[in-house]
């Protein structure tokens, strides 16, 4: 099995396994709502939004209870979003601070992973030594897997197999650990031990689509390894286990045919190869089957059918070559780039799940096939991320115009309304009312202390009292005669009655007025408070537009500076992908040309054989 193929398989496995060391699957206890909000986006793999929310919450000091975790999470998010450099600096910053041992281990885990992803295996290995032994089974398994991958990267395959041997696999991990161990053993040259491990895995019942694919892959890999090692009998056994409905069926059919052919059983080889021949796809296995099938027939001595199928193969290769040339032309003319644009989904991050549509694209299946390939996906991810960033900034740019309008409207409204409001406020109406109320209250207190009913007399009573006072003064000046004495007595009686009336109502009046004043007090205080509110609101309303112009303009300038750089980077990325695609298409074309020339050569030989046979016959 090719060294690079194994490495790729391992990378794939690392990607698909759950990253339990970094983020537990158990529900998190959230003590700051905003931290929970970051997790909400993180768990949905919307890394861009998660990072933005995290940065905002940090800036606004809203992560008091998750300070260290949020720093670690930020690094993890940056790593997931492809910002390896930023993630590395973030993790180193965390190591500098006063961190506990659990956090320390997680940080070293991430740093190890970054170096592993970069292909700096030696550095990754050194970093790995700084991680303490975790208690959790799942974490130990994850570390062992990382350890094994690094060791394989360093070429220490035996060490890698050893690292995986001792680990007890938690639920859901067994298959991943086994396939990695099997591969490590094969690469270390211990074919028998590797076979035993992969054999067990290949026979296991798989409950999920992912595990079934993994099982197929183990059987396929083992089958080809045994074929290479010269054991076609066993190879056939493993290749037979690959599901016909699975994604690896074509490779398995081709290998099965070669296993039969290696044993000299060309008749048996015809069955899988014929199946592949009928598929007539553009995958390398199907292409190779067009050459393998007549080869088997020729070996069986069926020259006529061999000639027929070699001729068919030549026609097929010509047609496929034409298709590839069209695909190359389409890639050169920018069709690939427009297919790439179809991959824009308007969301940040993530892999391309759906292939772009092929309507009207010449030889589109070749191009889409290339885009789906693992080595294109990384580049395509960057291309899509850049597309998302450009769209996002365009949206912000149109929002910026709205913000300007909003601020202008606020400023205008303030300029129109503020003078009138200020004028009313300056009249201090509420304050005057409050002073009057206070005066009344003081008067009432004084009246209460003086116990003088006249102070609470009604207007009419006051008039009557003044009139009686006047009458009394006049009567006092009159001579002492019975007629005047009677009048004086009557006036005194009237004064007495009036005074008695006022005196008897005095307490009720005092209580009534106190009640009225008390009733007035809350509304009066409310009015004063509102007055103050309006006063401060008038001041703070200015904050709704003051200073925003400069802030908005600065943002606009930053957007305008970034947009062309993003477009240029996206253009470069597209070109880069195009070059990769063209290289890949050229490789496929060369392979087709090679198949074709082999088919032509074999056809000529078959014609010769037929001619000789015809001549030999009487």
């Amino acid at each position, binding site marked *: 099995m*090719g060294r690079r193929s194994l490495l*790729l398989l391992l990378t794939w496995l690392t990607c698909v396994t759950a990253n339990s060391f970094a983020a537990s*699957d158990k529900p998190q206890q*959230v003590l700051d709502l905003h931290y929970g909000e970051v997790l909400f986006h993180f768990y949905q793999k919307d890394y861009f939004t998660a990072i933005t929310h995290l940065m905002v919450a940090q800036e606004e000091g809203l992560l008091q209870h998750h300070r260290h975790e949020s720093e670690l999470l930020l690094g993890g998010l940056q790593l997931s979003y492809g910002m390896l450099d930023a993630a590395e600096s973030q993790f180193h910053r965390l190591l500098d601070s006063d961190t506990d041992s659990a956090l320390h281990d997680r940080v070293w885990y991430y740093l190890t992973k970054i170096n592993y992803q970069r292909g700096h295996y030696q550095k990754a290995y050194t970093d790995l030594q700084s991680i303490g032994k975790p208690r959790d089974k799942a974490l130990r398994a994850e570390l062992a897997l990382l350890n094994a991958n690094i060791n394989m990267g360093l070429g220490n395959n035996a060490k890698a197999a050893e690292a995986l041997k001792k680990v007890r696999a938690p639920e859901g991990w067994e298959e991943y650990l086994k396939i990695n161990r099997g591969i490590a053993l094969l690469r270390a040259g211990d074919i028998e031990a590797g076979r035993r491990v992969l054999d067990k895995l290949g026979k296991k019942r798989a409950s999920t689509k992912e595990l079934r694919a993994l099982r197929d892959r183990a059987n396929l890999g083992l089958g080809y390894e045994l074929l290479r090692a010269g054991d076609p009998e066993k190879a056939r056994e493993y290749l037979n286990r690959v599901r016909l409905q699975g994604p690896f069926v074509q490779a398995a059919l081709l*290998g099965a045919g070669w296993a039969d052919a290696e044993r000299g059983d060309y008749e048996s080889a015809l069955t899988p190869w014929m199946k592949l021949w009928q598929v007539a796809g553009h995958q*390398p296995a199907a292409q190779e089957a067009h050459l393998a099938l007549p080869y088997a027939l020729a070996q069986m001595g069926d020259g006529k059918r061999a000639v027929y199928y070699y001729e068919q193969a030549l026609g097929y290769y010509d047609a496929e070559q034409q298709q590839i040339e069209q695909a190359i032309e389409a890639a050169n003319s920018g069709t690939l780039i427009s297919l790439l644009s179809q991959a824009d989904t308007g969301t940040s991050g993530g892999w391309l799940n759906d292939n772009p549509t092929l309507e009207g694209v010449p030889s589109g299946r070749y191009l889409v096939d290339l885009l789906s390939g693992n080595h294109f996906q990384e580049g395509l991810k960057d291309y899509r991320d850049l597309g998302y960033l450009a769209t*996002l900034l365009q949206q912000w740019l149109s929002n910026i115009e709205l913000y300007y309008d909003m601020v202008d409207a606020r400023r205008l409204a303030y300029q129109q309304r503020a003078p009138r409001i200020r004028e009313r406020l300056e009249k201090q109406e509420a304050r005057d009312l409050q002073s009057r109320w206070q005066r009344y209250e003081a008067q009432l207190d004084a009246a209460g202390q003086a116990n003088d009913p006249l102070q609470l007399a009604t207007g009419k009573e006051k008039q009557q009292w003044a009139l009686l006072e006047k009458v009394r003064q006049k009567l006092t000046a009159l001579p002492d005669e019975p007629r005047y004495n009677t009048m004086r007595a009557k006036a005194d009686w009237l004064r007495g009655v009036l005074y008695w009336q006022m005196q008897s109502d005095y307490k009720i009046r005092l209580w009534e007025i106190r009640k009225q004043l008390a009733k007035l007090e809350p509304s009066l205080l409310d009015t004063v408070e509102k007055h103050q509110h309006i006063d401060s609101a008038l001041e703070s309303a200015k904050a709704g537009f003051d200073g925003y112009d400069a802030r908005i303009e600065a943002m606009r300038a930053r957007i305008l500076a970034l947009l062309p750089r993003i477009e240029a980077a996206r253009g470069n990325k597209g070109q880069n992908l195009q070059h990769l695609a063209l290289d890949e298409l050229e490789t496929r074309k060369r392979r087709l040309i090679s198949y074709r020339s082999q088919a032509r050569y074999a056809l000529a030989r078959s014609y010769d054989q037929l001619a000789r046979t015809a001549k030999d016959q009487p």
Partner: protein
Amino acid sequence: MRRLISGLLAGLLVWPLLLPAEPAASGETGLKDNVQTLKKQVLELNRDLFMLEEDLLFPSNTQVSVFVSLDVGDFFQLDSVQVKIDGKEVADYLYTQRELDALVRGGVQRIHVGNLRTGEHELVAFFTGKGPHGRDYKRGATTKIKKGLGPKYVELKIVDQTKNYQPEFDIKEW
């Protein structure tokens, strides 16, 4: 002919597990760095724009945010949440499986952000979902929230009631 077999096999053995890309060209590394730098700068700008927008649209003295979180067992599956403030519907949200998974793992969703003047307001919330045996659930809760000068955060937590194991709202003001 033997050479034909080995020639074909040599090709075969490499491709079945998918060929890796050619080693990255030197220009590729530079491009990658550039993409990283751009991502970093856009994220910083996005943060600042986000804060500007919040300051403009939802100033802290009037801002009210409503969050939804989940703390329920395996037997309840949330479908939707509806929120009304002072009789006006401010959110009606249908959840995707991906969002539900995020909530179950401890994620908190900001379902509404808006403005309210200081004082007391009525918040009414409903949620719908499916319980054991696909039984439909709809529960509601009403609460008075007091808006002060700073931003107001309200958490609508859907929890299992210990007494009857049925999900209910637990409303918390932060």
